[in-house]
């Protein structure tokens, strides 16, 4: 325990490439980019499927399969490919080893929750509202942006929450490839035997802190986006879990954490 505190308070651990700030930044960068990429792919598809309700079966099945795939496995599979591509000079081989494969895996695995979240969010919009919109002469695009999105946004953020947690967890493991991120504290510690114990625990605490913090932030945003009428009154058991028959919100959707 004291070793951990010593580790966390040691100024050496706050400077340089191996310092906490840098590792944190590395972690955030890869996670952020992965989620961004996934969102760019998943959300438009989700919007289309949710709005038109076409192809939903296919999308849901795909999402289920994506949910099943182990992230560690997913992370290493692209390695031979990215390394071979590196030989063409497109990018640095190190980049092709420690960044690209996990990045691609994270983006790939973040697509299902974002897709499902977007789809579910749109499906949760009262059909009557949409009909009313059509009746008033709104175009499909306007219906989407003015009616559906505002109402669906909280559930979409729920999907974002799930995706982000998954990505943060995966990035932690990605450090095994030699890249950056908070996972490095854990792996470096593992490699040092008994001496490395504080590093391991410190890494665990740091990455947990990041995950919990991000989750809380997104949860706040999610609540803020929920139309006031639908919010659960204070004091009742809400914290992310509503009745299962309702649309999954954020932490309610249970996914692959690895």
């Amino acid at each position: 325990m004291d070793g951990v505190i010593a580790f966390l308070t040691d100024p050496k651990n706050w400077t340089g490439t191996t310092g906490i700030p840098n590792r944190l930044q590395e972690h955030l960068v890869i996670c952020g980019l992965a989620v961004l990429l996934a969102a760019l792919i998943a959300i438009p598809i989700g919007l289309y499927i949710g709005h038109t309700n076409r192809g939903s079966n296919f999308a849901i099945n795909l999402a289920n399969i994506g949910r099943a795939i182990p992230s560690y496995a997913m992370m290493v599979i692209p390695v031979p490919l990215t390394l071979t591509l590196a030989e063409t000079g497109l990018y640095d081989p190190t980049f092709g080893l420690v960044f690209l494969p996990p990045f691609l895996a994270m983006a790939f695995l973040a697509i299902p929750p974002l897709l499902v979240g977007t789809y579910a969010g749109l499906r949760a919009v009262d059909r009557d509202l949409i009909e009313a919109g059509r009746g008033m002469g709104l175009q499909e695009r306007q219906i989407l942006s003015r009616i559906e999105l505002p109402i669906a946004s909280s559930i979409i953020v729920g999907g974002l929450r799930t995706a982000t947690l998954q990505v943060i967890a995966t990035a932690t493991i990605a450090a095994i490839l030699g890249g950056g991120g908070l996972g490095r504290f854990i792996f470096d510690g593992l490699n040092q035997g008994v001496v490395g114990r504080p590093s391991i625990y410190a890494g665990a605490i740091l990455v947990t802190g990041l995950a919990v913090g991000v989750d809380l932030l997104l949860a706040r945003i999610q609540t803020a986006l929920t139309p006031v009428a639908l919010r659960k009154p204070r004091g009742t058991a809400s914290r992310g879990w509503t009745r299962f028959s309702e649309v999954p919100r954020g932490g309610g959707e249970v996914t692959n954490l690895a």
Partner: protein
Amino acid sequence: MPPGTKIFDISWTLGHLAQIWERIVQHFQLIVVPLLVGIVISLILAVWAVRRRWAYAPITLITGVLYTIPSLAAFAVLRPITGLSFITAWIPLTAYTLLILFRNFTAGFTSVPSEILEAAEGMGYTRRQRLFRVELPLAIPLMIAGIRLASVTTIGLATIVAVLGDQFGGLGQLITEGIQTFFPTKYLLGAVISVVLAVGADFLFVRLERLITPWSRARAGAN
């Protein structure tokens, strides 16, 4: 990669089938106990919790927070001693299955409409009969969905556990060794086989869900 490394070395694979198979078996050994134990404990807890609605809020809160913790961090912290056998891995793996299953099991029970329970009680079912003959069968679809998720997740988590030490074995072992020795064949084998296992299990459970609930397949068609 060292130059000349084949991406996938078939002859090596064929030559090491026994080792590969051993890893697969180890992987099963890693996941079976946590799943079974998780199911039993979650079932008991769920039945317990359904009778006490006041327990929902705190339990949900706790499981929700625990769920946010990245698995590697959790494993790293929970790993008490290196050098032991599977049991060391079983503890965190079981913990995760509990998180998933408890939530899904209770959801299964609360999904049973109250009028059905009332009708059952009014007709003279005992508490026990009601649980086993009415609540449980009707909770099964959501429960199977939970078991499906837990299985698939555990298969994935079991690959990570190997990162912490090589006494656990399993497919994660293949992956880790392959990475550390820059030997693609190994980590690709480990990765692909674990993906196949996970997706296959998912598929099997979907079939199981459909098989067990003939009444949900029968949709109103007559009138």
